[in-house]
Protein backbone atom coordinates (compact mmCIF):
# COMPACT_ATOMS: atom_id res chain seq x y z
CA UNK A 1 0.00 0.00 0.00
CA UNK A 2 1.39 3.35 -1.03
CA UNK A 3 0.78 6.41 1.10
CA UNK A 4 2.28 9.28 -0.84
CA UNK A 5 0.39 11.67 -3.09
CA UNK A 6 1.78 12.51 -6.51
CA UNK A 7 1.16 16.06 -7.67
CA UNK A 8 1.85 17.27 -11.18
CA UNK A 9 1.55 21.06 -11.14
CA UNK A 10 1.75 23.17 -14.29
CA UNK A 11 4.21 20.79 -15.91
CA UNK A 12 5.20 21.94 -19.40
CA UNK A 13 7.77 20.55 -21.80
CA UNK A 14 9.23 22.23 -24.85
CA UNK A 15 11.86 20.46 -26.92
CA UNK A 16 14.45 22.78 -28.47
CA UNK A 17 14.38 22.85 -32.28
CA UNK A 18 17.10 21.12 -34.25
CA UNK A 19 19.19 23.71 -36.07
CA UNK A 20 16.90 26.53 -37.21
CA UNK A 21 13.68 24.61 -36.63
CA UNK A 22 11.25 26.15 -34.17
CA UNK A 23 11.06 24.54 -30.72
CA UNK A 24 8.35 21.92 -30.30
CA UNK A 25 5.80 22.28 -27.53
CA UNK A 26 5.20 18.67 -26.45
CA UNK A 27 3.23 19.23 -23.30
CA UNK A 28 1.00 22.17 -22.39
CA UNK A 29 0.73 23.11 -18.71
CA UNK A 30 -0.59 19.96 -17.09
CA UNK A 31 -2.06 19.43 -13.64
CA UNK A 32 -2.85 16.03 -12.18
CA UNK A 33 -3.04 14.65 -8.69
CA UNK A 34 -2.79 10.93 -8.05
CA UNK A 35 -3.94 9.79 -4.62
CA UNK A 36 -2.20 6.94 -2.78
CA UNK A 37 -3.32 3.56 -4.04
CA UNK A 38 -4.98 4.93 -7.16
CA UNK A 39 -4.63 3.30 -10.58
CA UNK A 40 -4.62 6.09 -13.15
CA UNK A 41 -4.40 5.43 -16.87
CA UNK A 42 -3.20 8.16 -19.21
CA UNK A 43 -4.83 7.59 -22.58
CA UNK A 44 -3.85 9.45 -25.72
CA UNK A 45 -2.88 9.19 -29.37
CA UNK A 46 0.76 8.51 -30.17
CA UNK A 47 2.98 11.56 -29.93
CA UNK A 48 0.63 13.37 -27.53
CA UNK A 49 3.26 13.79 -24.85
CA UNK A 50 1.94 11.10 -22.47
CA UNK A 51 5.28 9.33 -22.34
CA UNK A 52 7.02 12.68 -21.88
CA UNK A 53 4.79 13.32 -18.88
CA UNK A 54 5.60 9.91 -17.42
CA UNK A 55 9.34 10.41 -17.99
CA UNK A 56 9.12 13.73 -16.14
CA UNK A 57 7.42 11.99 -13.20
CA UNK A 58 10.17 9.36 -13.30
CA UNK A 59 12.80 12.11 -13.24
CA UNK A 60 14.30 10.95 -16.54
CA UNK A 61 13.26 14.20 -18.20
CA UNK A 62 12.99 17.70 -16.72
CA UNK A 63 9.95 19.93 -17.22
CA UNK A 64 10.45 23.28 -18.95
CA UNK A 65 8.11 24.76 -16.36
CA UNK A 66 6.09 23.46 -13.43
CA UNK A 67 6.88 20.86 -10.84
CA UNK A 68 6.24 17.27 -9.85
CA UNK A 69 6.11 16.46 -6.16
CA UNK A 70 5.73 13.20 -4.30
CA UNK A 71 4.29 14.12 -0.89
CA UNK A 72 5.76 17.64 -1.11
CA UNK A 73 9.24 16.37 -2.01
CA UNK A 74 10.06 17.77 -5.47
CA UNK A 75 11.06 15.26 -8.12
CA UNK A 76 14.39 16.34 -9.62
CA UNK A 77 16.01 13.02 -10.54
CA UNK A 78 15.10 9.38 -11.01
CA UNK A 79 14.91 7.34 -7.83
CA UNK A 80 13.86 3.95 -6.51
CA UNK A 81 10.66 5.44 -5.03
CA UNK A 82 9.29 5.63 -8.59
CA UNK A 83 9.66 2.24 -10.27
CA UNK A 84 9.27 2.11 -14.00
CA UNK A 85 8.52 -0.45 -16.68
CA UNK A 86 9.30 0.62 -20.23
CA UNK A 87 7.71 -0.37 -23.51
CA UNK A 88 11.06 -1.52 -24.91
CA UNK A 89 12.70 -4.56 -23.36
CA UNK A 90 15.12 -3.18 -20.80
CA UNK A 91 16.27 -6.23 -18.88
CA UNK A 92 20.03 -6.27 -18.40
CA UNK A 93 21.10 -8.96 -20.89
CA UNK A 94 24.12 -9.99 -18.80
CA UNK A 95 22.00 -10.79 -15.73
CA UNK A 96 19.69 -13.75 -15.26
CA UNK A 97 16.02 -13.26 -14.47
CA UNK A 98 16.69 -13.54 -10.73
CA UNK A 99 19.71 -11.21 -10.90
CA UNK A 100 17.68 -8.65 -12.86
CA UNK A 101 14.99 -8.69 -10.19
CA UNK A 102 17.66 -8.19 -7.51
CA UNK A 103 19.35 -5.27 -9.30
CA UNK A 104 17.72 -2.49 -7.26
CA UNK A 105 18.06 -4.42 -4.02
CA UNK A 106 21.78 -4.95 -4.57
CA UNK A 107 22.16 -1.27 -5.42
CA UNK A 108 20.61 -0.44 -2.06
CA UNK A 109 23.11 -2.74 -0.31
CA UNK A 110 20.52 -5.23 0.94
CA UNK A 111 22.13 -8.41 2.35
CA UNK A 112 22.34 -11.26 -0.15
CA UNK A 113 20.00 -13.60 1.75
CA UNK A 114 17.31 -10.97 2.03
CA UNK A 115 17.64 -10.12 -1.69
CA UNK A 116 17.04 -13.75 -2.44
CA UNK A 117 13.88 -13.88 -0.32
CA UNK A 118 12.42 -10.78 -1.97
CA UNK A 119 13.30 -11.97 -5.47
CA UNK A 120 11.81 -15.36 -4.70
CA UNK A 121 8.53 -13.73 -3.73
CA UNK A 122 8.20 -11.70 -6.91
CA UNK A 123 9.32 -14.58 -9.12
CA UNK A 124 6.41 -16.53 -7.71
CA UNK A 125 3.92 -13.66 -7.98
CA UNK A 126 4.75 -12.91 -11.62
CA UNK A 127 4.72 -16.54 -12.69
CA UNK A 128 8.46 -16.77 -13.41
CA UNK A 129 9.10 -20.02 -11.49
CA UNK A 130 11.49 -22.22 -13.42
CA UNK A 131 12.93 -19.26 -15.35
CA UNK A 132 15.07 -17.79 -12.54
CA UNK A 133 18.34 -18.71 -14.21
CA UNK A 134 17.40 -17.91 -17.80
CA UNK A 135 19.13 -15.13 -19.70
CA UNK A 136 16.78 -12.43 -21.03
CA UNK A 137 17.51 -13.44 -24.63
CA UNK A 138 16.03 -16.86 -23.87
CA UNK A 139 12.69 -15.34 -22.85
CA UNK A 140 9.62 -14.39 -24.88
CA UNK A 141 8.48 -10.77 -24.87
CA UNK A 142 5.80 -11.54 -22.30
CA UNK A 143 8.25 -13.23 -19.95
CA UNK A 144 10.67 -10.32 -20.31
CA UNK A 145 7.96 -7.85 -19.29
CA UNK A 146 6.99 -10.07 -16.36
CA UNK A 147 10.60 -9.87 -15.21
CA UNK A 148 10.67 -6.10 -15.76
CA UNK A 149 7.51 -5.79 -13.64
CA UNK A 150 8.96 -8.03 -10.93
CA UNK A 151 12.19 -6.00 -11.00
CA UNK A 152 10.28 -2.75 -10.47
CA UNK A 153 8.03 -4.24 -7.75
CA UNK A 154 10.90 -5.88 -5.85
CA UNK A 155 12.23 -2.39 -5.12
CA UNK A 156 8.96 -1.64 -3.29
CA UNK A 157 8.42 1.77 -4.94
CA UNK A 158 5.88 4.32 -3.72
CA UNK A 159 4.50 4.56 -7.23
CA UNK A 160 4.72 2.36 -10.28
CA UNK A 161 5.14 4.09 -13.64
CA UNK A 162 4.21 1.96 -16.62
CA UNK A 163 4.94 3.30 -20.10
CA UNK A 164 2.90 1.13 -22.49
CA UNK A 165 4.51 -1.92 -20.91
CA UNK A 166 2.46 -4.36 -22.97
CA UNK A 167 2.53 -2.35 -26.19
CA UNK A 168 4.95 -4.67 -27.98
CA UNK A 169 3.17 -7.89 -26.99
CA UNK A 170 0.68 -9.86 -29.04
CA UNK A 171 -2.99 -9.49 -28.16
CA UNK A 172 -3.41 -12.68 -26.12
CA UNK A 173 -0.23 -12.17 -24.11
CA UNK A 174 -1.23 -8.57 -23.49
CA UNK A 175 -4.55 -9.66 -21.98
CA UNK A 176 -2.80 -12.16 -19.72
CA UNK A 177 -0.37 -9.48 -18.58
CA UNK A 178 -3.23 -7.08 -17.85
CA UNK A 179 -4.83 -9.69 -15.61
CA UNK A 180 -1.51 -10.32 -13.87
CA UNK A 181 -1.00 -6.59 -13.24
CA UNK A 182 -4.56 -6.22 -12.00
CA UNK A 183 -4.14 -9.14 -9.61
CA UNK A 184 -0.98 -7.58 -8.18
CA UNK A 185 -2.56 -4.16 -7.87
CA UNK A 186 -5.71 -5.54 -6.22
CA UNK A 187 -3.52 -7.25 -3.63
CA UNK A 188 -1.02 -4.42 -3.00
CA UNK A 189 -2.94 -1.23 -3.89
CA UNK A 190 0.25 0.42 -4.95
CA UNK A 191 -0.19 3.73 -6.78
CA UNK A 192 0.04 3.16 -10.54
CA UNK A 193 0.39 5.63 -13.38
CA UNK A 194 -0.16 3.71 -16.59
CA UNK A 195 0.37 5.18 -20.06
CA UNK A 196 -1.44 3.53 -22.95
CA UNK A 197 -3.19 4.18 -26.25
CA UNK A 198 -5.44 1.13 -25.82
CA UNK A 199 -8.93 2.14 -24.59
CA UNK A 200 -9.90 -1.38 -23.42
CA UNK A 201 -6.69 -1.67 -21.45
CA UNK A 202 -7.26 1.69 -19.77
CA UNK A 203 -10.83 0.87 -18.71
CA UNK A 204 -10.06 -2.68 -17.67
CA UNK A 205 -7.22 -1.67 -15.35
CA UNK A 206 -7.72 1.85 -14.07
CA UNK A 207 -10.06 3.50 -11.63
CA UNK A 208 -9.56 6.79 -13.44
CA UNK A 209 -8.74 7.46 -17.08
CA UNK A 210 -7.06 10.71 -18.07
CA UNK A 211 -7.52 11.51 -21.76
CA UNK A 212 -4.84 13.60 -23.43
CA UNK A 213 -5.22 15.71 -26.55
CA UNK A 214 -3.08 15.47 -29.64
CA UNK A 215 0.25 17.33 -29.60
CA UNK A 216 0.80 19.67 -27.94
CA UNK A 217 -0.58 17.44 -25.21
CA UNK A 218 -2.89 18.61 -22.48
CA UNK A 219 -5.41 16.82 -20.30
CA UNK A 220 -8.67 16.89 -22.21
CA UNK A 221 -10.90 14.86 -19.93
CA UNK A 222 -10.83 12.83 -16.74
CA UNK A 223 -13.19 9.87 -16.73
CA UNK A 224 -13.70 7.83 -13.56
CA UNK A 225 -14.15 4.10 -14.04
CA UNK A 226 -16.73 3.04 -11.44
CA UNK A 227 -16.47 -0.68 -12.20
CA UNK A 228 -15.88 -2.71 -9.04
CA UNK A 229 -12.73 -4.68 -8.24
CA UNK A 230 -11.80 -7.51 -8.37
CA UNK A 231 -12.26 -7.34 -12.09
CA UNK A 232 -11.89 -10.18 -14.55
CA UNK A 233 -11.90 -10.54 -18.31
CA UNK A 234 -15.64 -11.18 -18.58
CA UNK A 235 -16.12 -7.50 -17.70
CA UNK A 236 -14.81 -6.50 -21.09
CA UNK A 237 -18.13 -7.53 -22.64
CA UNK A 238 -20.38 -6.04 -19.94
CA UNK A 239 -22.72 -3.11 -20.87
CA UNK A 240 -21.07 -0.70 -18.37
CA UNK A 241 -17.73 -1.38 -19.98
CA UNK A 242 -19.14 -0.77 -23.45
CA UNK A 243 -20.71 2.52 -22.37
CA UNK A 244 -17.41 3.76 -20.97
CA UNK A 245 -15.61 2.63 -24.07
CA UNK A 246 -18.07 4.51 -26.29
CA UNK A 247 -17.48 7.66 -24.26
CA UNK A 248 -13.70 7.40 -24.36
CA UNK A 249 -13.72 6.58 -28.04
CA UNK A 250 -15.68 9.75 -28.72
CA UNK A 251 -13.13 11.72 -26.69
CA UNK A 252 -10.14 10.24 -28.40
CA UNK A 253 -11.29 9.93 -32.03
CA UNK A 254 -10.93 13.65 -32.71
CA UNK A 255 -7.49 13.64 -31.16
CA UNK A 256 -6.31 10.70 -33.20
CA UNK A 257 -7.54 12.40 -36.34
CA UNK A 258 -5.74 15.62 -35.39
CA UNK A 259 -2.58 13.72 -34.61
CA UNK A 260 -2.77 11.95 -37.96
CA UNK A 261 -3.21 15.14 -39.97
CA UNK A 262 -0.60 17.13 -38.05
CA UNK A 263 1.98 14.44 -38.45
Amino acid at each position, binding site marked *: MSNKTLRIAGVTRTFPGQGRAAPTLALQPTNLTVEPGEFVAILGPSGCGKSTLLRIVAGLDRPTAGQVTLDDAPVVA*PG*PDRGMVFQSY*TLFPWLTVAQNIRF*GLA*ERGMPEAQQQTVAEKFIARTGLRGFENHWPRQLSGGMQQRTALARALA*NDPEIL*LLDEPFGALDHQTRELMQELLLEIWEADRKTVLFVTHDIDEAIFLANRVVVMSARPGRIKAEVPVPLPYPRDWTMKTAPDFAALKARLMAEIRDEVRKAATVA
Partner: protein
Amino acid sequence: MKPLVPVSTGARVILGVGFFVLFVAGWGAVTWSGWVPPLFLASPGRTLLAGWSLLTEFGFAGDIGITIFRVVGGFLIAAAIGVPLGLMMGAFKPVEAFFEPFISFARYLPASAFIPLLILWAGVGEAQKLSVIFIGSFFQIVIMVAVIAGATRIDLVEAAYTLGARSRGIVRRVIIPSAAPQVMETLRLVLGWAWTYVIVAELIGATSGIGHMIMDSQRLLDTGQMIFGIVVIGVIGLVTDFLFKALNRKLFPWAAI
Protein backbone atom coordinates in the same frame (compact mmCIF):
# COMPACT_ATOMS: atom_id res chain seq x y z
CA MET B 1 24.80 -21.90 -52.51
CA LYS B 2 22.19 -19.42 -51.26
CA PRO B 3 23.03 -16.08 -49.66
CA LEU B 4 23.38 -16.05 -45.86
CA VAL B 5 22.36 -19.70 -45.36
CA PRO B 6 24.47 -21.11 -42.49
CA VAL B 7 26.94 -23.92 -43.06
CA SER B 8 27.16 -27.01 -40.81
CA THR B 9 30.10 -27.36 -38.39
CA GLY B 10 31.49 -30.40 -40.20
CA ALA B 11 31.42 -28.70 -43.59
CA ARG B 12 32.96 -25.60 -42.08
CA VAL B 13 35.95 -27.56 -40.73
CA ILE B 14 36.44 -29.44 -44.01
CA LEU B 15 36.29 -26.25 -46.07
CA GLY B 16 38.61 -24.38 -43.69
CA VAL B 17 41.23 -27.15 -43.64
CA GLY B 18 40.74 -27.64 -47.38
CA PHE B 19 42.11 -24.24 -48.24
CA PHE B 20 45.22 -24.82 -46.12
CA VAL B 21 45.81 -28.09 -47.99
CA LEU B 22 45.28 -26.40 -51.35
CA PHE B 23 47.63 -23.58 -50.38
CA VAL B 24 50.44 -25.95 -49.34
CA ALA B 25 49.85 -28.06 -52.48
CA GLY B 26 50.20 -24.97 -54.68
CA TRP B 27 53.33 -23.96 -52.81
CA GLY B 28 54.72 -27.50 -53.24
CA ALA B 29 53.84 -27.54 -56.94
CA VAL B 30 55.79 -24.38 -57.78
CA THR B 31 58.82 -25.32 -55.66
CA TRP B 32 59.15 -29.08 -56.18
CA SER B 33 58.75 -28.69 -59.94
CA GLY B 34 61.72 -26.34 -59.88
CA TRP B 35 59.61 -23.58 -61.39
CA VAL B 36 60.68 -21.25 -58.55
CA PRO B 37 64.31 -21.75 -57.44
CA PRO B 38 64.95 -22.43 -53.70
CA LEU B 39 66.97 -19.20 -53.51
CA PHE B 40 63.66 -17.29 -53.67
CA LEU B 41 61.25 -19.76 -52.17
CA ALA B 42 61.98 -22.92 -50.18
CA SER B 43 59.72 -25.93 -50.66
CA PRO B 44 57.36 -26.98 -47.84
CA GLY B 45 59.70 -29.86 -47.01
CA ARG B 46 62.79 -27.63 -46.89
CA THR B 47 60.89 -25.17 -44.71
CA LEU B 48 59.96 -27.87 -42.20
CA LEU B 49 63.54 -29.14 -42.13
CA ALA B 50 64.82 -25.60 -41.61
CA GLY B 51 62.34 -25.20 -38.80
CA TRP B 52 63.47 -28.43 -37.20
CA SER B 53 67.09 -27.39 -37.23
CA LEU B 54 66.15 -23.93 -35.94
CA LEU B 55 64.38 -25.48 -32.99
CA THR B 56 66.90 -28.20 -32.22
CA GLU B 57 70.23 -26.51 -33.06
CA PHE B 58 69.70 -22.76 -32.82
CA GLY B 59 67.41 -22.45 -29.80
CA PHE B 60 64.58 -20.91 -31.80
CA ALA B 61 62.13 -21.80 -28.98
CA GLY B 62 63.86 -19.09 -26.95
CA ASP B 63 63.29 -16.56 -29.74
CA ILE B 64 59.63 -17.51 -29.91
CA GLY B 65 59.36 -17.13 -26.14
CA ILE B 66 60.95 -13.70 -26.05
CA THR B 67 58.77 -12.47 -28.91
CA ILE B 68 55.59 -13.71 -27.21
CA PHE B 69 56.76 -12.01 -24.02
CA ARG B 70 57.22 -8.69 -25.86
CA VAL B 71 53.85 -8.81 -27.59
CA VAL B 72 51.87 -9.93 -24.57
CA GLY B 73 53.79 -7.64 -22.20
CA GLY B 74 53.37 -4.49 -24.29
CA PHE B 75 49.79 -5.39 -25.09
CA LEU B 76 48.86 -6.03 -21.43
CA ILE B 77 50.36 -2.71 -20.31
CA ALA B 78 48.45 -0.93 -23.09
CA ALA B 79 45.22 -2.74 -22.18
CA ALA B 80 45.63 -2.17 -18.43
CA ILE B 81 45.75 1.60 -18.97
CA GLY B 82 43.79 1.88 -22.21
CA VAL B 83 40.65 -0.05 -21.24
CA PRO B 84 39.89 1.92 -18.03
CA LEU B 85 40.66 5.21 -19.79
CA GLY B 86 38.43 4.26 -22.72
CA LEU B 87 35.60 3.27 -20.37
CA MET B 88 35.87 6.59 -18.53
CA MET B 89 35.86 8.49 -21.83
CA GLY B 90 32.81 6.60 -23.03
CA ALA B 91 30.97 7.13 -19.76
CA PHE B 92 31.88 10.73 -19.01
CA LYS B 93 31.66 13.21 -21.86
CA PRO B 94 33.99 15.84 -20.33
CA VAL B 95 36.71 13.18 -20.01
CA GLU B 96 36.09 12.28 -23.64
CA ALA B 97 36.22 15.93 -24.71
CA PHE B 98 39.58 16.27 -22.92
CA PHE B 99 41.36 13.22 -24.36
CA GLU B 100 39.58 12.38 -27.59
CA PRO B 101 41.16 14.96 -29.94
CA PHE B 102 44.69 14.10 -28.85
CA ILE B 103 44.15 10.35 -29.00
CA SER B 104 42.52 10.60 -32.43
CA PHE B 105 45.66 12.37 -33.57
CA ALA B 106 48.06 10.04 -31.80
CA ARG B 107 46.52 6.86 -33.19
CA TYR B 108 47.55 7.87 -36.70
CA LEU B 109 51.20 8.08 -35.67
CA PRO B 110 52.77 4.89 -37.01
CA ALA B 111 54.35 2.90 -34.21
CA SER B 112 57.20 1.79 -36.46
CA ALA B 113 58.20 5.41 -37.09
CA PHE B 114 58.93 5.73 -33.38
CA ILE B 115 61.50 2.94 -33.41
CA PRO B 116 64.56 5.14 -34.12
CA LEU B 117 63.45 7.60 -31.44
CA LEU B 118 62.71 4.84 -28.97
CA ILE B 119 66.15 3.33 -29.55
CA LEU B 120 67.57 6.74 -28.71
CA TRP B 121 65.49 6.97 -25.53
CA ALA B 122 65.37 3.40 -24.33
CA GLY B 123 68.23 1.65 -26.06
CA VAL B 124 67.75 -1.66 -27.82
CA GLY B 125 66.57 -3.57 -24.75
CA GLU B 126 63.17 -4.88 -23.76
CA ALA B 127 61.85 -1.45 -22.71
CA GLN B 128 62.15 -0.26 -26.31
CA LYS B 129 60.37 -3.33 -27.70
CA LEU B 130 57.55 -3.05 -25.17
CA SER B 131 57.24 0.67 -25.94
CA VAL B 132 56.72 0.00 -29.65
CA ILE B 133 53.92 -2.46 -28.88
CA PHE B 134 52.47 -0.06 -26.35
CA ILE B 135 52.38 2.87 -28.77
CA GLY B 136 50.93 0.68 -31.47
CA SER B 137 48.13 -0.72 -29.30
CA PHE B 138 47.32 1.87 -26.66
CA PHE B 139 45.63 4.57 -28.73
CA GLN B 140 43.65 2.05 -30.76
CA ILE B 141 42.37 0.38 -27.60
CA VAL B 142 41.39 3.67 -25.96
CA ILE B 143 39.46 5.01 -28.92
CA MET B 144 37.61 1.77 -29.65
CA VAL B 145 36.72 1.11 -26.01
CA ALA B 146 35.48 4.70 -25.68
CA VAL B 147 33.18 4.22 -28.67
CA ILE B 148 31.87 0.91 -27.30
CA ALA B 149 31.22 2.32 -23.81
CA GLY B 150 29.64 5.44 -25.28
CA ALA B 151 27.22 3.29 -27.25
CA THR B 152 25.73 1.72 -24.11
CA ARG B 153 21.98 1.37 -24.57
CA ILE B 154 20.47 4.48 -23.03
CA ASP B 155 17.25 2.64 -22.09
CA LEU B 156 19.26 0.26 -19.91
CA VAL B 157 20.93 3.22 -18.23
CA GLU B 158 17.53 4.80 -17.62
CA ALA B 159 16.14 1.54 -16.25
CA ALA B 160 19.07 1.37 -13.83
CA TYR B 161 18.41 4.96 -12.71
CA THR B 162 14.77 4.16 -11.92
CA LEU B 163 16.00 1.20 -9.88
CA GLY B 164 18.04 3.53 -7.71
CA ALA B 165 21.48 3.40 -9.33
CA ARG B 166 23.73 6.48 -9.16
CA SER B 167 26.67 7.38 -11.42
CA ARG B 168 28.94 4.82 -9.80
CA GLY B 169 26.38 2.05 -10.14
CA ILE B 170 25.66 3.01 -13.75
CA VAL B 171 29.34 2.70 -14.68
CA ARG B 172 30.03 -0.41 -12.62
CA ARG B 173 26.83 -2.35 -13.18
CA VAL B 174 25.61 -1.17 -16.59
CA ILE B 175 28.30 0.40 -18.78
CA ILE B 176 31.12 -2.02 -17.93
CA PRO B 177 29.18 -5.30 -18.20
CA SER B 178 27.38 -4.13 -21.32
CA ALA B 179 30.67 -3.14 -22.99
CA ALA B 180 32.69 -6.15 -21.82
CA PRO B 181 32.14 -8.60 -24.72
CA GLN B 182 32.90 -6.01 -27.39
CA VAL B 183 35.91 -4.78 -25.42
CA MET B 184 37.26 -8.34 -25.48
CA GLU B 185 36.66 -8.47 -29.23
CA THR B 186 38.60 -5.23 -29.59
CA LEU B 187 41.48 -6.64 -27.54
CA ARG B 188 41.54 -9.71 -29.77
CA LEU B 189 41.78 -7.49 -32.83
CA VAL B 190 44.47 -5.21 -31.39
CA LEU B 191 46.55 -8.17 -30.22
CA GLY B 192 46.69 -9.22 -33.88
CA TRP B 193 48.04 -5.82 -34.83
CA ALA B 194 50.57 -5.95 -31.98
CA TRP B 195 52.17 -8.94 -33.73
CA THR B 196 52.98 -6.83 -36.77
CA TYR B 197 54.61 -4.17 -34.60
CA VAL B 198 56.78 -6.62 -32.67
CA ILE B 199 58.31 -8.05 -35.83
CA VAL B 200 59.11 -4.57 -37.13
CA ALA B 201 60.65 -3.72 -33.76
CA GLU B 202 62.76 -6.89 -33.94
CA LEU B 203 63.92 -6.28 -37.49
CA ILE B 204 65.79 -3.22 -36.24
CA GLY B 205 68.26 -3.34 -33.38
CA ALA B 206 67.37 -6.65 -31.81
CA THR B 207 69.52 -9.58 -30.78
CA SER B 208 66.75 -12.10 -30.25
CA GLY B 209 63.20 -12.86 -31.27
CA ILE B 210 61.41 -14.17 -34.33
CA GLY B 211 61.94 -10.93 -36.29
CA HIS B 212 65.65 -11.00 -35.52
CA MET B 213 65.88 -14.61 -36.73
CA ILE B 214 64.13 -13.67 -39.99
CA MET B 215 66.60 -10.80 -40.48
CA ASP B 216 69.58 -13.12 -39.82
CA SER B 217 68.23 -15.75 -42.25
CA GLN B 218 67.98 -13.16 -44.98
CA ARG B 219 71.73 -12.58 -44.76
CA LEU B 220 72.21 -16.33 -45.29
CA LEU B 221 69.55 -16.39 -48.04
CA ASP B 222 67.82 -19.18 -46.13
CA THR B 223 64.25 -18.78 -47.36
CA GLY B 224 63.23 -21.96 -45.51
CA GLN B 225 64.04 -20.41 -42.14
CA MET B 226 62.39 -17.10 -43.06
CA ILE B 227 59.19 -18.80 -44.12
CA PHE B 228 59.21 -21.00 -41.05
CA GLY B 229 59.47 -17.88 -38.86
CA ILE B 230 56.52 -16.29 -40.62
CA VAL B 231 54.46 -19.48 -40.36
CA VAL B 232 55.18 -19.70 -36.63
CA ILE B 233 53.74 -16.21 -36.17
CA GLY B 234 50.66 -17.24 -38.12
CA VAL B 235 50.19 -20.34 -35.97
CA ILE B 236 50.57 -18.37 -32.74
CA GLY B 237 48.02 -15.86 -34.05
CA LEU B 238 45.59 -18.63 -34.87
CA VAL B 239 45.98 -20.20 -31.42
CA THR B 240 45.51 -16.91 -29.51
CA ASP B 241 42.48 -16.10 -31.63
CA PHE B 242 40.98 -19.44 -30.78
CA LEU B 243 41.75 -19.02 -27.07
CA PHE B 244 40.25 -15.52 -27.06
CA LYS B 245 37.05 -16.75 -28.65
CA ALA B 246 36.78 -19.67 -26.23
CA LEU B 247 37.37 -17.33 -23.31
CA ASN B 248 34.69 -14.93 -24.57
CA ARG B 249 32.16 -17.72 -24.88
CA LYS B 250 32.95 -18.79 -21.32
CA LEU B 251 32.92 -15.27 -19.86
CA PHE B 252 29.82 -14.02 -21.68
CA PRO B 253 27.33 -16.85 -22.06
CA TRP B 254 24.52 -14.26 -22.16
CA ALA B 255 25.81 -12.62 -25.32
CA ALA B 256 25.63 -15.74 -27.52
CA ILE B 257 28.55 -14.66 -29.68
